[in-house]
């Protein structure tokens, strides 16, 4: 089975992922040289991480913390 383009896969799953508690961002990333889906979390707790699938439509999902994004005025 041929994998769908990662941008198509992202567009199908972004809303669902962004609604999960603790998820603050979803992007196209890379694991080594291979494309992956990168999920940013506001808190890297096992409970939140446990809810994120390890693969989506054949693409590995990379979960990272540090996603407390805010506007950067002084």
């Amino acid at each position: 089975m041929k994998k769908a383009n990662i941008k198509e896969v992202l567009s199908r799953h972004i809303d669902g992922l962004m609604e999960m508690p603790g998820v603050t961002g979803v992007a196209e990333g890379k694991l080594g040289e291979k494309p992956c889906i990168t999920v940013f979390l506001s808190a890297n707790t096992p409970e939140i991480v446990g809810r994120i699938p390890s693969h989506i439509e054949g693409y590995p999902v990379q979960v990272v913390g540090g996603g407390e994004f805010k506007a950067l005025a002084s």
Partner: protein
Amino acid sequence: MRKKHLLSIVLALILVLPVAMVNASPPSGGPTGLENAIAVKDRHADTLLATPGVAGVGVGLAENGKAAIVIFTEKLGVRGLPASIEGIPALVQKSGEFVALARPEGKGPKNNSPVVTITSPPDGAMYDTGTIIVFSGMANDIEDGDLSAALSWTADGSPIGIGQSFTISLGDGIHTITALATDSGGKTGTSSVTITVGASPTSWQTRPVPIGVSTGHPDITAGTIGARVIKDNKVYALSNNHVYANENHASIDDNVLQPGVYDGGRNPADAIGTLSAFKPIEFSRRANNVIDAAIALSSDGLLGRATPSDGYGTPKSAPVTAYIGMPVMKYGRTTGFTHGQIYVIDATVNVRYSSGVARFVHQIIITPGTFSAGGDSGSLIVVEGGADNNSPVGLLFAGSSSYTIANPINDVLAYFGVTIDGE
């Protein structure tokens, strides 16, 4: 390199041992059998040294005071080594462990790192352009003692001097000063301070002001001038909506200041332009915001097109599209000239503002976390190195302690119908 160093330590120990032996032993030819052990060691040294994992061979005293052949290994658990040779016991020592034997004071096998202190300049110091700055520091090492005379100093990674104290002047800009000491065991210790020479990006700047410095609407704290952009022969300052339009609350024709109010900017005395246009931000977790951007009408006399002299200079006009791994740089009000790389693209992110959370799509995310901080909002992000060096990629607007987020610059320029006034 590391292995070579290890071997030189081992060789030094082999030389040291017989001396310690003479001091501790009965008169020459006594019962310890040192000479015989040395002869046996010499006959077998080549064979032992050919064994994988063996770093050296020596002669020392066993716990019972009798001579022993000591086989130094690079790690524990080297196989195939004899327990005795020609009746003389053979002791296996991991090279690192043997250091303990050579230190009868009982300091243990650990080599401590030197501790470095910078006594001048103080962290955060500011100097006028051209000031001769005194650099001085101390380095102390538990094993080696005072290493201050061998301190190695750098400014932003480039060497500026060696020793306990010296003077030199540095160019304008924010500089990270690091003093490094290396002990005889190869362990290093460092200390760093950050100093500013000349006008800092937070200061009031001589008009026309450079890009990459403090700016803002009178009702906000401070952000950064990203670039000078042009349209129909008019000159504009580019920054974020949340810097120039106060998260949709500002009115067209409001002044924008340099520096921002947080940095002492006064309205209207420090105005460099007036708000011309901004893209409203939709504060919703379901929104599809792409840009947080605004432009302020300025002039050639008030706004330049290059960063301060310690930055990347003038950006190129033609933007490029981000890719994962792209090396980038920016000059901003808070962290100055920094370097990073693009970590992910096409990011959908929720960003917190004073007015609430807004979702952005198609964003660029950059690492490391030190690439930006609060006050850098509005900075232009450009490519570092290669054929596209200085080409604009993104407009910095948000981030966390680990990441920086930027709008694709193409979308920013297209929305206002402007081009970057670059080379």
